């Protein structure tokens, strides 16, 4: 039930903020803060409990399962369930949610109620995406998070916001609709095979799909996820959306929305279409590597700080796709780490870009420089996160990238080597950020203030998290371990051979097994 309550609290809090925002400007942000904090605390406690009590080698990976009929005539149910991966991402969602509320504390001055309404509803949609175990419901939440995001960018963004909002919405919507087609296709294939028409994820897992159809259905799912992720060449919405969105919007976009794409691939594409995914793997990895390099080169040439960071996201997400399609436990664990650490490090960079914008009224790094003198704290933190972004050992991103590359090396040596070269490029652009913003001769004579107390809280929590993840990532690894193990199990070569002997038996108790 906690799952329902969480979504309910977020949506309710949003409505409350909207209504009370009419007559008090301060109330909405306190409501938002309380709402998100409650969710965060609830999930952290839940996680700690879970972590203590549950054995990571357990076969049943599901922690909570809640189900209620929704549209029975279509076999659609309001089915929420979480396993380690979902739990982890939910904790992340609420963590960044709290930060998003905090970092827009003074940023937003107009239409405060509506702003926090949108913020909370985005979080609700994202939480829903991470919990939904009914494909229809999943799509539902997938789209629900878009509209408030559209408003967030379109109303509170900077100069070019309308264009960015359109672009964001149309890209994600177009790809999402293709996924809807694939979902319905899967629904009918499953129904025609078994006579049971349902959108239930667990039922659909065992669907026997003719290979050529499976490939197209998988592409339908993939397109939605790779646009969200994003993978070159579907990435062009991202720099615009990120750079035009308000700080909290960029934070949520980079920290959470992109993660839903990776989550979707892990949760749906691989288990539902293992063989098609297997066929796609070399291409997916290739595009991942192209993304790594291409994103990095583009990041290097940007002069708009937020745009620059946005392109680094493209580069980092290339690692994610590379890792996912390496299909082994190392890489997949790396991917999960990458999701978490990228959310933190890129989120921090966006927050910092927002703070700089607030102080300097520009995002152009050519107009910055020498800020260390006046803002040593921000300089140090900025340096730290630039280092995180280039994958410095000891910080979380390194663990993620190293595990991904280590895993991917097993799958494809050549591509991994090229991807590793991407690390050099990441050093180039990260150091460029530091150099242009904080180092060099001071460009300004007026006073620029360093962190305020609220900002220190925000940045300190991010810093602690990234260092913690860099030095002791085991809690994260253990939490997702059962899920990842199961997933990796599907793709181990020995298993494939075993599978061939299963050839004639259409039904098997194991949900993730590959069937021909």
């Amino acid at each position, binding site marked *: 039930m906690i799952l329902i309550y969480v979504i309910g609290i977020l949506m309710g809090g949003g409505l409350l903020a909207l209504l009370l925002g009419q007559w008090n400007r301060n109330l909405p942000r306190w409501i938002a803060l309380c709402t998100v904090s409650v969710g965060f605390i609830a999930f952290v406690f839940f996680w700690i409990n879970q972590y203590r009590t549950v054995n990571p080698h357990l076969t049943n990976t599901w922690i909570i399962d809640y189900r209620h009929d929704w549209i029975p005539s279509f076999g659609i149910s309001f089915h929420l369930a979480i396993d380690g991966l979902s739990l982890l991402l939910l904790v992340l969602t609420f963590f960044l949610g709290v930060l998003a509320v905090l970092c827009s504390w003074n940023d937003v001055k107009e239409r405060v109620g509506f702003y926090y309404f949108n913020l909370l509803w985005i979080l609700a949609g994202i939480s829903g995406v991470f919990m939904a175990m009914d494909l229809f419901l999943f799509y539902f939440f997938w789209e629900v998070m878009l509209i408030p995001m559209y408003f967030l960018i379109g109303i509170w963004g900077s100069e070019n916001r309308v264009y960015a909002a359109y672009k964001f919405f149309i890209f994600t919507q177009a790809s999402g609709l293709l996924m809807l087609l694939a979902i319905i296709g899967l629904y009918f294939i499953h129904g025609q095979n078994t006579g049971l028409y349902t959108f239930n994820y667990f039922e659909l897992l065992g669907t026997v799909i003719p290979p050529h159809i499976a490939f197209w259905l998988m592409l339908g799912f993939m397109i939605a996820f790779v646009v969200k992720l994003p993978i070159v060449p579907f990435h*062009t919405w991202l720099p615009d959306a990120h750079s035009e969105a308000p700080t909290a919007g960029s934070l949520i976009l980079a920290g959470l929305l992109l993660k839903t794409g990776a989550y979707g691939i892990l949760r749906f594409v691989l288990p539902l279409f293992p063989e098609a995914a297997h066929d796609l793997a070399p291409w997916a990895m290739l595009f991942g590597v192209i993304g790594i390099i291409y994103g990095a080169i583009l990041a290097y*040439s940007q002069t708009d700080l937020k745009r620059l960071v946005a392109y680094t996201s493209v580069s980092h997400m290339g690692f994610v796709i590379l890792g996912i399609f390496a299909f082994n436990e190392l890489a997949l664990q790396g991917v999960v780490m990458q999701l978490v650490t990228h959310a933190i490090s890129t989120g921090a960079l966006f927050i910092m870009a927002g703070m700089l914008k607030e102080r300097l009224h520009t995002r152009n790094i050519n107009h910055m420089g020498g800020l260390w003198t006046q803002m040593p704290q921000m300089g140090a933190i900025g340096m730290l996160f630039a280092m995180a972004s280039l994958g410095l050992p000891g910080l979380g991103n390194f663990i993620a990238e190293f595990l991904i590359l280590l895993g991917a090396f097993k799958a494809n040596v050549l591509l991994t080597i090229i991807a590793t070269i991407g690390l050099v490029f990441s050093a*180039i652009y990260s150091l460029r950020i530091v150099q242009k913003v904080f180092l060099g001769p001071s460009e300004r004579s007026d006073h620029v203030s360093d962190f305020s107390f609220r900002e220190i809280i925000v940045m300190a929590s991010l810093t602690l998290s990234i260092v913690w993840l860099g*030095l002791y990532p085991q809690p994260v690894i253990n939490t997702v371990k059962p899920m990842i193990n199961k997933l990796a199990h599907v793709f181990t070569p020995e298993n494939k051979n075993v599978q061939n002997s299963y050839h004639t038996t259409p039904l098997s108790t194991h949900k993730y097994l590959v069937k021909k």
Partner: protein
Amino acid sequence: MNNLLWLVPVLPFAGFLILALAGKHISRVWVAIIGAGSVSLSAILVLIIGISFLSHPPATGYYSQTLWTWMQVADFNPNITLFLDALSLVFIFVITFIGALIHIYSAGFMASDKDYSRFFACMNLFVFSMLLLVLADNLLLLYLGWEGVGLCSYLLIGFWYENPVNGYAARKAFIITRIGDTAMAIGLFVIFYQFGTLAIPDILTKAPVLWQQGASIATITALLLLAGGVGKSAQLPLQTWLPDAMAGPSPVSALIHAATMVTAGVYLIARMHIIFQLSPIAQMIVAVIGAATLFIAGFSALTQYDIKRVLAYSTISQIGYMFLALGVGAWAAAIFHFMIHAFFKALLFLAAGAVIEALHHEHNMFKMGGLKNKLPVIFWTFLIGSASLAALPLISAGFYSKDQILWYAWASEGGNPLLWFIALLGAFITAIYTTRMMVLVFWGEAKTEIGHHPGKLMTVPLIVLAFFSLFAGFIELPHNFGHFTLFSDLLHQVLPETVLKAGMNNELQFQLLALLSTFGGIYVAYVFYYKQPQRIEKLKQSRFVMNLYLFWFSGWGFDKLYNTLIVRPIVFIANVNKNDVVDKLYQGVTFVTVSLYQSLSFTQSGSLRWYIMGLVIGAIIILSMQIML
């Protein structure tokens, strides 16, 4: 006492944390005390641990201490484990001991800097990372230290960040070393999939079992690790960053870019020596790289006018010697040279720093001169350092370490006459540029007024280092000259002994030749720079010599080469593609949509007759489809 090992890196780290978090609120004295004190404490601790390690050597030859499991994924489970054996003992001794001296020196040197606490924070962080590097039990932890020292090097080179040139040098250093690191990371992948572990002891035991002598996988792995070492140790072809790195404060150059970090490559190769031994080709390449580097860096050093750049090129060249030694299988000799080099090069940099500060930040040697009497302490310590660098026979420590390398370059299994000859030539050049530097700085007439004299905090470390530069060599004497092998005995617990070719016993001749080359070099420099400086001017009139001079001066044109081949094309592509060519695709889609809209909207002309026409045409199409199909 061994179980206090964790404190050795933790002390400087604690210093870093205190200075980083509260540096603004601590007085400068306390900053110095915390900064230098933490490293000094750790140096003392190392002494204690070292004594206990030597007096009660562990049965396995090493001592390891697991702090916690870093992560555990599938069969990949690196720990945060510290690992102490003879090799790492030597390194942590050098790091903490020289580190402490340099910290003390810095307390005086940086006294007037506004970012005092930031400097010490970074220095402490560096010591921590470097200790982690050499104490790491597995390659991943080593990599952590490896990148950590890179970060600190970056931070400290660019310490005076207001000047963009420093920032550029810092970035160059970081990025070029990162190229090597990347190759090393790939090497780690290979190792992991070959041995299923990254723990160094396991790798070293498994390698000879799993791999054939001369197996190509061994070569590949060794070369990938070598690439890492080459980057960090500024060897050919990744040597270009080190001369620029001199933009940092002199203590930084002394600690990071002379004594410790740049020798990390030497440490790595020595640490993974079994893999290198399995691949004679790779080992040969190490030797060749070392020889080529020492040669070209020597010539470049000859032409510099910036005192720190001379020292930088000389560092590259000296590390070349160490690589050469590693390559020919003279493992202990390489480590010995590392230690001696750490002493005298740290000394030289610190003394140079004192000179530079005394002369109002004047780096140009040609504007110095006549300091012999004005800065006597500096002069004498610098002289001792130079003697060691030039390997002045018998009395300097440098002679003992370098002579060993020269001998092994000829006589060991992997050695050959060509390598030996290059090394000898290198020694000759070393003597020339060292003497040139001495002459230009300390003799002749004074060209710049002296500002303030170095205080006690600065001179005491110089004197201590000078002492070691003179006498540290006596712990390892040549076979025909006392045959005192304290140091190599210690190291041979870890590293294999050097195998000599058959029938090599005429070591004396080679020592004499080395001696000759040193004195020859000193004489040449004496003639050209002291006796008849006009000869140089005369030589420079020749076009060829001038071009050669400029070529050497620019570090053999490597910077230019890399700029044209790699940097410029990438920057060009990046700038051309700034607006993302992929986006054009989507703009094209938009354009098509809008043009379709415009042409369709043209059909909505508002004319009823046109609408009727449309209706009729539609009807005709439908009817003809009905009937035709």
